[in-house]
């Protein structure tokens, strides 16, 4: 049987998404697929178009590759516009030829609307839609100083951002009385305007342009209907989109009064063999100008072509969350409160530039819509309430209040309905997860494999774990705290077993208290516990196989199998002589060199066999290992302090160096970071660290359990005006209590939040010695400090340990063939792209 032909016109985001869906479906075997694109490039991500000006290339924005099309047997004809459709003969015509089709998909998208203004055809007037448009704007911006965007909507503000990143003074001219009139209300628009003007973008509202003429101080002048004018060197129109329906119109398909190809729930047009998806399609008198509804149409159509009779597009949620010029903006559901009887709850902090509005039903029970400006951290919870029709809590206003004023924390796992989306990358709902559990999955790992949840960007990992734990508990499954299948114990329990029984090797522990041979979860955990308890060299024969590669080779593995090296630079203080040595070593081994956030220097690209040689040189110059590879103290960051600074009240560098030298090498459940600031100006950012110290006139204030990273948390004030001795003693106790009782890979913040009694309990234990273990904790720490050894020094001096650093044990001279290099900004980097 010869194959049928499916032709797709348009290679934008939606067209590409359709092909991705269709190519992997059963029906793909029945069709030859041919794609026509007007633009020269493959489909690319228009949502992130402005990044093209801040350094992204077409390749960064591309959705697929030519190889992908080839692998899926899709014929791609770019730069070949379709000129006409002959519905009787079922062919399409291009400048090159006529092509027959059996099924035709129109994914022609939209075109920018240019208001009918005299002079809008000036060579310095542009639209903002394609990479070609952007190239033209960029060329024109070379000799321009100012740029105006006509249109203050979503795309207009994106365009303004683009002009700003091209170095132009950017203006936005909007016809409506506020910015983003579709998504925002008057107050929200005002807050957004304030924020954007702070960023240096000038906003002009209620301006109707009547003509564009030659300017006096700039190339162009825009005349407004109120008699005012604005001079500028270039103009970008971003005043909305219109569906690209010309082909459909000319071939006699039904189109809407104001444009758009009319489609039914199956995304099929008035001709049963022609379909339309994305911004060119008019469904139920509506055009959907966002990418997500277009994707939904694409999935629907793919199902329809596979004979799925139930597949239907039934509208789409138009809620959006975005960052415009760095400002959070969110709009959910009925944002303008157009539902009858709708009531509003508003929070407006003009000082901070935060505006939040909830639109609730007349009985106050349901959330109908919301507007957010300035802080989108409230968006996810509000969206869950609105989309799932969850009953609002009694004090609904707490959902938009700041936490310090009694705001509610995020929605608990239990409150989410089955339809709640947990993983948006793989579209996994809470119901899917419950289904997997009911089908026999009984742990997080199994659920990840079964549902793919949390295997995309991973941002939902914590939420997923909450849902899984809560669902397992509901089903009476005891949530296992076992660290893995080899030990029926938590990390804390293992710690006690090791300590109490004086166990010094993994083999002894697993033969007495576990089963099997261990794995990559329990081995490093036990390795860390053994190091904390007995502080033996981590490359001692028994300990080598317990460590992650970074610990084993005392360096950080990079994507091509080479390592990076971070020598310790306590407190960030370094002599010029030592700095020169770092430069010399980096130069000799051609190491990519970068300053880290922790006030030290990272040297990348060393091969396994180079590591001991490099460290020999560093050690000779007085360097020690920086433990950047370990779950241990990283750095103690400091500001310059009272020895130089006009404002410093204590010697912060001196204290930082003391702390770094005291706690270096301490093995912990996770990495530990510290900082010391010399005054309350807090230049060392101590409040974002596990241990933060800020100088006062009378001594030191101690903050604990802060962190940066994915879920930043400010440290809590723990004790004030401590003397040097009191400070050290307190930190000794906090750290050692953490090391002994925290779970595997638990930062201090999560550890403290999980302590029953939290911060107050920790204060009792540490400051008031409520458990009577204060002296023991200090003694334990003293022992570790006393037995510190630089692991690298011990390693380079021991020929047996050095043997581990051979790349290939039978071919010492052989270079790893996959380590290919290229040069970027005058330094070497891996050319390996397969990662």
């Amino acid at each position: 049987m010869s194959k049928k032909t499916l032709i797709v016109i348009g290679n934008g985001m939606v067209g590409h998404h359709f092909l991705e869906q269709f190519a992997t479906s059963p029906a793909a075997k029945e069709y030859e697929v041919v794609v026509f694109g007007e633009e020269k490039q493959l489909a690319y991500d228009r949502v992130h178009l402005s990044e093209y000006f801040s350094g992204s290339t077409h390749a960064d924005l591309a959705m697929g590759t030519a190889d992908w099309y080839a692998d899926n047997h899709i014929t791609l004809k770019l730069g070949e516009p379709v000129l006409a459709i002959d519905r009787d003969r079922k062919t399409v015509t291009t400048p090159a030829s006529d092509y027959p089709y059996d099924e035709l998909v129109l994914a022609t998208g939209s075109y920018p609307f240019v208001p009918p203004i005299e002079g809008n055809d000036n060579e310095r007037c542009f639209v903002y839609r394609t990479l070609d448009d952007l190239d033209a704007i960029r060329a024109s911006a070379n000799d321009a100083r100012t740029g105006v965007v006509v249109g203050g909507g979503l795309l207009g503000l994106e365009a303004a951002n683009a002009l700003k990143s091209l170095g132009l003074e950017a203006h936005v001219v909007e016809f409506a009385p506020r910015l983003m009139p579709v998504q925002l209300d008057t107050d929200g628009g005002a807050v957004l305007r304030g924020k954007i003007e702070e960023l240096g973008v000038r906003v002009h509202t209620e301006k109707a342009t009547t003509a564009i003429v030659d300017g006096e101080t700039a190339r162009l002048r825009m005349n407004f209907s109120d008699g005012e004018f604005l001079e500028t060197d270039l103009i970008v129109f971003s005043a909305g989109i219109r569906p690209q329906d010309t082909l459909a119109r000319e071939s006699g398909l039904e189109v809407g009064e104001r444009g758009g190809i009319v489609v039914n729930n199956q995304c099929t047009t008035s001709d049963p063999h022609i379909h339309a998806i994305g911004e060119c399609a008019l469904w139920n008198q509506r055009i959907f100008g966002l990418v997500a509804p277009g994707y939904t149409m694409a999935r629907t159509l793919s199902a329809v072509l596979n004979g799925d009779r139930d597949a239907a597009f039934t509208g789409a949620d138009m809620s959006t969350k975005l960052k415009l010029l760095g400002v959070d903006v969110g709009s959910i559901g009925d944002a303008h409160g157009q539902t009858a009887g709708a009531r509003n709850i508003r929070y407006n902090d003009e000082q901070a530039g935060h505006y939040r509005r909830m639109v609730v039903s007349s009985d106050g029970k349901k959330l109908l819509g919301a507007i957010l400006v300035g802080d989108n951290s409230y968006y996810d919870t509000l969206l869950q309430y609105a989309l799932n029709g969850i009953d609002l809590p009694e004090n609904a206003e707490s959902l938009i209040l700041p936490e310090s004023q009694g705001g509610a924390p995020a929605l608990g796992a239990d409150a989410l309905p089955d339809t709640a989306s947990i993983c948006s990358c793989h579209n996994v709902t809470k119901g899917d997860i419950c289904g997997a559990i009911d089908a026999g999955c009984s742990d997080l790992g199994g659920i990840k494999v079964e549902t793919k949840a949390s295997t995309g960007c991973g941002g939902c990992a914590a939420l997923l774990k909450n849902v899984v734990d809560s669902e397992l508990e509901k089903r009476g499954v005891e949530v296992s705290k076992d660290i893995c299948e080899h030990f029926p114990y938590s990390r804390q329990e293992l710690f006690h077993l090791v300590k109490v029984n004086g166990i010094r090797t993994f083999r002894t522990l697993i033969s007495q208290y576990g089963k099997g041979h261990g794995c990559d979860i329990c081995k490093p955990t036990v390795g860390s516990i053994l190091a904390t308890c007995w502080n033996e060299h981590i490359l001692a024969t028994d300990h080598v196989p317990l460590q992650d590669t970074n610990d084993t080779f005392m360096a950080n593995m990079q994507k091509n199998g080479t390592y990076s090296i971070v020598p310790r630079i306590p407190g960030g203080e370094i002599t010029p002589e030592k700095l020169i040595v770092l430069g010399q070593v980096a130069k000799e081994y051609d190491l990519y060199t970068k300053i880290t956030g922790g006030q030290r220097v990272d040297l990348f690209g060393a091969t396994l066999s180079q590591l001991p040689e490099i460290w020999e040189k560093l050690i000779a110059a007085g360097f020690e290992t920086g433990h950047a590879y370990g779950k241990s103290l990283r750095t103690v960051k400091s500001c310059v302090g009272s020895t130089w600074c006009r404002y410093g009240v204590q010697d912060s560098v001196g204290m930082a160096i003391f702390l770094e030298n005291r706690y270096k090498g301490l093995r912990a459940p996770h990495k530990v970071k510290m900082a010391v600031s010399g005054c309350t100006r807090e230049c060392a950012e101590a409040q974002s660290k596990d241990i933060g110290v800020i100088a006062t006139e009378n001594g030191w204030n101690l903050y604990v359990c802060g962190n940066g990273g994915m879920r930043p948390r400010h440290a809590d004030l723990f004790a004030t005006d401590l003397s040097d001795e009191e400070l050290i003693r307190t930190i000794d106790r906090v750290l050692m209590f953490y090391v002994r009782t925290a779970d595997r890979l638990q930062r201090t913040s999560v550890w403290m939040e999980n302590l029953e009694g939290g911060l107050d309990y920790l204060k009792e234990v540490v400051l008031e010695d409520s458990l009577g273990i204060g002296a023991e904790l200090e003694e334990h720490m003293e022992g570790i400090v006393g037995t510190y050894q630089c692991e690298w020094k011990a390693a380079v001096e021991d020929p047996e340990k050095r043997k581990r650093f051979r790349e290939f044990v039978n071919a010492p001279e052989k270079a790893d063939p996959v380590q290919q290099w290229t040069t970027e900004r005058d330094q070497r980097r891996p050319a390996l792209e397969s990662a």
Partner: protein
Amino acid sequence: MKARTRWDAVCTVEDLVPESGIAVWTENGPVAVFYLPHRLPALFAISHTDPFSGANVLARGITGDLKGEPIVASPLYKQHFSLRTGVCLEDDTVSVKTYPVLLDGNRIRLEVQATQQQPQAA
């Protein structure tokens, strides 16, 4: 043409690290040799190349067992590979090549494909 194999000596017992892996160079490319003294058999050899990253790193992974299957965890992205079959436990469509390995006196030998082609008649 019939594929020919050879048992090449790649290292000695002293080169091995108990409960861990080392890398050797063979005519077939880099191979990771693991020595798990508490199992029988105790020697395993698989390709040193991590299929997910393309980097030559598998010998530097942590070894152990999962549900009784001897495994190594890739040090880069942490997938587990069976040391017996080379199959990835997280994605059974991915696997690494395994090599027969034996102890010959003090020497470790691997069975590798001979890449030297036999002279062919014109």
